[in-house]
């Protein structure tokens, strides 16, 4: 091995070590939650003396928890459907078509992403109040959309950038109607971007706290419930639900991308 190659290996090894430390840093709290959820004692003391999954059992048997999950999932599903529909067209305007005012449009669309969510939540609270709308999980859906639609637009746009408009023109030229072009060419080609958009929309809504806090009214989402419990004092139910949230996100995301990879491989064969 030449000295140049040796120093290159060293550099690569250092970068790997650094990146893996950052991964550990990112997952350390999740590991702590998992540990805290796997004890049978009422209080968390480390090292754990009595391992057990009693609290998992208790948490899952609770009717209140079922209600929470129902609320959170309903909000997330509705947000996904609406956000992806609006964002799909938004992304076409963002990256597919060249039009006057596009550059300004792009910046306006991104503006909500660059906005502190806690302030956005309060602003929406004032707005709903001014309109006289009663707060419920439905207003929370709207609140989530304000932040999530721009994010999903961005996610889909990245796919749209790599889309060759000649494909649409070719289909058009071969006699397809506008609707057929959309159904046969545009949607299938942009599918990976739309799929990522769905994942992002669902998961960002699922995990959102600052926007839900001011806009759900009497309804409660999982993150809100967790926050209330955290502030009120320790219960092992919090680590259990925290771990469930993390694992759900991991499974959906890794599983989702696994599907995309499998689909691509299947098509190459």
């Amino acid at each position: 091995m030449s000295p140049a190659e040796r120093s290159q290996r060293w550099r690569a090894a250092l970068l790997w070590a650094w990146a893996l430390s950052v991964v550990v840093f990112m997952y350390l709290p999740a590991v702590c939650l998992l540990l805290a959820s796997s004890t049978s004692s009422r209080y968390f003391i480390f090292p754990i003396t009595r391992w057990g999954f009693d609290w998992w059992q208790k948490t899952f048997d609770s009717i209140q928890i079922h209600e929470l999950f129902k609320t959170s999932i309903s909000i997330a599903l509705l947000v996904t459907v609406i956000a992806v529909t609006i964002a799909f067209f938004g992304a076409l305007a963002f990256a597919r078509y060249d039009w006057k005012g596009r550059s300004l449009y792009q910046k306006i669309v991104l503006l909500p992403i660059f906005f502190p969510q806690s302030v956005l939540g309060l602003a929406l609270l004032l707005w709903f109040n001014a309109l006289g709308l009663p707060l419920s999980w439905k207003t929370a859906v709207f609140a989530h959309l304000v932040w999530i639609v721009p994010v999903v637009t961005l996610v889909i746009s990245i796919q749209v950038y790599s889309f060759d408009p000649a494909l649409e023109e070719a289909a058009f030229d071969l006699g397809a109607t506008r609707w057929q072009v959309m159904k046969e060419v545009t949607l299938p080609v942009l599918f990976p971007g739309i799929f990522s958009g769905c994942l992002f929309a669902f998961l960002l809504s699922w995990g959102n706290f600052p926007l839900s806090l001011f806009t759900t009214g009497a309804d409660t989402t999982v993150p809100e419930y967790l926050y209330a419990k955290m502030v009120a004092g320790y219960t092992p139910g919090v680590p259990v639900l925290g771990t469930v949230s993390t694992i759900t996100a991991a499974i959906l995301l890794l599983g989702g991308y696994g599907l995309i990879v499998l689909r691509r491989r299947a098509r190459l064969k």
Partner: protein
Amino acid sequence: MTTRSPVIELRQITKTFGNFTAVHSIDLSIGEGEFFTIVGPSGSGKTTVLRMLAGLESPTSGDILLRGQRINDVPANRRPTCMVFQSLALFPHRTVGQNIEFPLKIRDVPPAERRQRALQLMAQLRLPEDYYGKNVTKCSGGERQRVALARALAYNPDTLFFDEPLSAIDYKLRKTLEKELKDIHRETGKTFIYITHSLEEAMVMSDRIGVMRSGRLVQVGTPNEIYTSPNSKFVSEFIGDVNIIPVRLNGGSKLQSDDLGAEFTAPGMPSGFSAGHLVVRPESLRIIDRREDAENVLTGKLYNEYALGSRIQYQVRVGEQVFIVERLRQQALNKQRDSEVMIGWNARDSILVGD
């Protein structure tokens, strides 16, 4: 060319990436001031050879020598060589002048002197003086080409490497730039090592050409040698349209083509030859009136004709094979399609090669 003292020598250079051998034990010696071109199809390993010469890649085994010194372990920024990249790799955030001055700035040359040298190079490469402050991304393809060359020359290297810099340029401009490059080579007297997938481009500029295939150097020679005596079917095909007939040795000195059911007189026969290919260039193949006009004769049907400017190309079908014949425009053949024609060539105008 062998009288020149070698500047660069490759000794059994091999480069592997994982299980893939990109370059397979190459031996090569390039003389001082020579314009050497490596030609090969994409994936033949020519870019890898160049990157190893530039120091951007290190060989898995073998040695690279610069004026007799082993330079395997010298990194690119310490080698007195410089490369013009395929994408040109101009710094998009810098002006034309700043791009050219980059290697001088790196060496802490004072600004006034840098500017003077940059302007001098711009004049040499026929770039207008007012381009000095121009954004490099606003330049045309040919101008960018010249900026890249000026930047490399500013480094004042012994040897310049070129990684297909002209591949993305349209035909007419490419022809102009090829000639300019040859002029620059002559004016500077530096060693140029050029790679391209176009043997035509290589022919125009080079003193010598090396042909690469699947990581091996299959033939090295002057343009004339490569053209007139290719040592394989691969090299002969690389030079453009060519007629190739699979043949085997028949008895003493005759060649038999089973596909065409014909027998040919062979040119000089390589020792130990038993089967291979007979290569006839389109300009050596003639359309004849009488069987006695050529040593080897085939009869076929006129299939198609194409105007090539000063010449006309005819396709003649013999059995399943299509032969290409070229004639000057003045000697155009006035015959209907599908009419019967006789084509022929003399044995000395053909070449016998292996695979």
